[in-house]
């Protein structure tokens, strides 16, 4: 096996419970370099927890999580920092820093690592704003002064600004109108292609999944129940996938309605 065929992101038998609630129950996943994987699944199936376990923000109870063959679980602070340096994430609620103007949000890493002067960082942020279709005037506004769609685009600009090797997107189109959702999907696809990054996207939105994904995986009760090329999602006879993509009430996925 040549080196580039080794998975960049590798999860094996990952478990995570919060008290009696078991969220991840033996999750296995591999993402190859340059691949864009979309993970679909209902609410509360462990999608966001999985991403946070990969980032080391949540400590997995058991299993193996590796980024470029470096172990994440029980990694030292230095190793975890090195791993996180490769990764950027777009959070579901954008998670922009309220106390900083847009340009400082975008250039945050570059400023903290003193890779640029403040003047250079501002110019770089304006360049990144342009790449997500926002005008330069937005640079000096604060996140609270932006609409939800603009915040999501700024968050995307912040995620791509350090030119990461790996990108995570947590429900990037949730809460946006379909047109803005489409814009964000295209920007994500373009950014991933341009950077040549490996990407994992979590979404409920099948239109979004089809636009972004090379491969799709479905998670249910903390396990991957199906994965395959994006083009195969409609053809599969997997009952979980069928129920989910057609939004059926009947099927193996149980929804508690009390």
């Amino acid at each position: 096996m040549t080196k580039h065929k080794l998975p960049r992101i590798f999860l094996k038998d990952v478990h995570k419970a919060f008290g009696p609630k078991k969220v991840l129950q033996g999750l296995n996943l591999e993402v190859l370099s340059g691949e864009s994987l979309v993970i679909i699944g209902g609410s509360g199936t462990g999608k966001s927890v999985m991403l946070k376990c990969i980032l080391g923000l949540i400590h997995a109870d058991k299993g193996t999580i590796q980024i470029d063959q470096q172990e994440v679980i029980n990694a030292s602070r230095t190793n975890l920092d090195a791993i996180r340096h490769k990764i950027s994430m777009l959070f579901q609620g954008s998670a922009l820093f309220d106390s900083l103007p847009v340009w400082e949000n975008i250039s945050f890493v570059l400023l903290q690592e003193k890779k640029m002067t403040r003047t250079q960082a501002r110019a770089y942020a304006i360049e990144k704003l342009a790449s997500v279709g926002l005008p330069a005037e937005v640079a000096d506004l604060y996140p609270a002064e932006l609409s939800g769609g603009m915040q999501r685009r700024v968050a995307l600009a912040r995620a791509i600004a350090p030119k990461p090797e790996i990108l995570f997107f947590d429900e990037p189109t949730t809460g946006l109108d379909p047109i803005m959702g489409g814009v964000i999907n295209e920007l994500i696809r373009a950014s991933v292609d341009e950077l040549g990054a490996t990407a994992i996207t979590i979404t409920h939105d099948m239109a979004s999944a089809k636009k972004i994904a090379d491969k799709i995986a479905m998670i249910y009760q903390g396990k991957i129940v199906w994965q395959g090329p994006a083009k195969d999602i409609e053809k599969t006879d997997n009952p979980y996938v069928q129920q989910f993509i057609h939004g059926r009430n009947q099927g193996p996925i149980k929804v508690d309605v009390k």
Partner: protein
Amino acid sequence: MISFCANIGRLFLNFLQGTGHFIVFMSQALAIGIRPPYYSRQVLKQAIDIGYFSLPVVGLTATFTGMVLALQSYTGFARFSAEGAVATVVVLSVTRELAPVLAGLMVAGRIGAAIAAELGTMRVTEQIDALSTLSTDPFQYLVMPRIIAGTLMLPLLVLVADIIGVFGGYLVSIYKLGFNPGNYLHQTLQYLKAMDVISGLVKAAVFGFCITIMGCYHGYYSQGGAQGVGSATTNAVVSSSILILIFNYLLTAVFFDK
């Protein structure tokens, strides 16, 4: 009876668990926070917030405390013709006890609450997670600058409160109670020792540490949306106020116990 005992036991265990959790947080904050990188811009911002913007509230509190102290001491001492001790009582009470404790309590209400609310909101909106993914340690970027600023700025605030509080007493004594200004100032300085002021400033530094670390602790572990942030704010103010009163006694015992 059994359920009563069980409740007492549960409360005690919760207290121990909370204390242990706080000690782990404090150790982590100090151990990680003293390592580079250092965020001097953040320290300066917090110092301005805690020091400069607390001046009006601390100044007003000190002025009226000094004034009321002069008035009350006079009415009390006049009963046994000891009015001459008013100046000494005012200056010793203000410098040793009232300025540090009242400034501490006012800053706990203003800054402790603000820190808990800010960090709590950052926690529930995933901004703290975003910081970690942007290769920035929240302990270094958020917690340590607040602790440093609080520990350094509270003594300065108390020094100002000392001066303003004594001046408040002076105003009432001269313009309302008819004391001779020269005599009053002489009495004020005659029995004042450096240790009276220094003890107040040391207390202030400890109170500043307590206020900021409690605000950071409750905010950092805030959960459950707006209600969680509200609880964090209340807990931060209550716990830091209690700590101020406890440490005030302990430090007084250390400095002045015979």
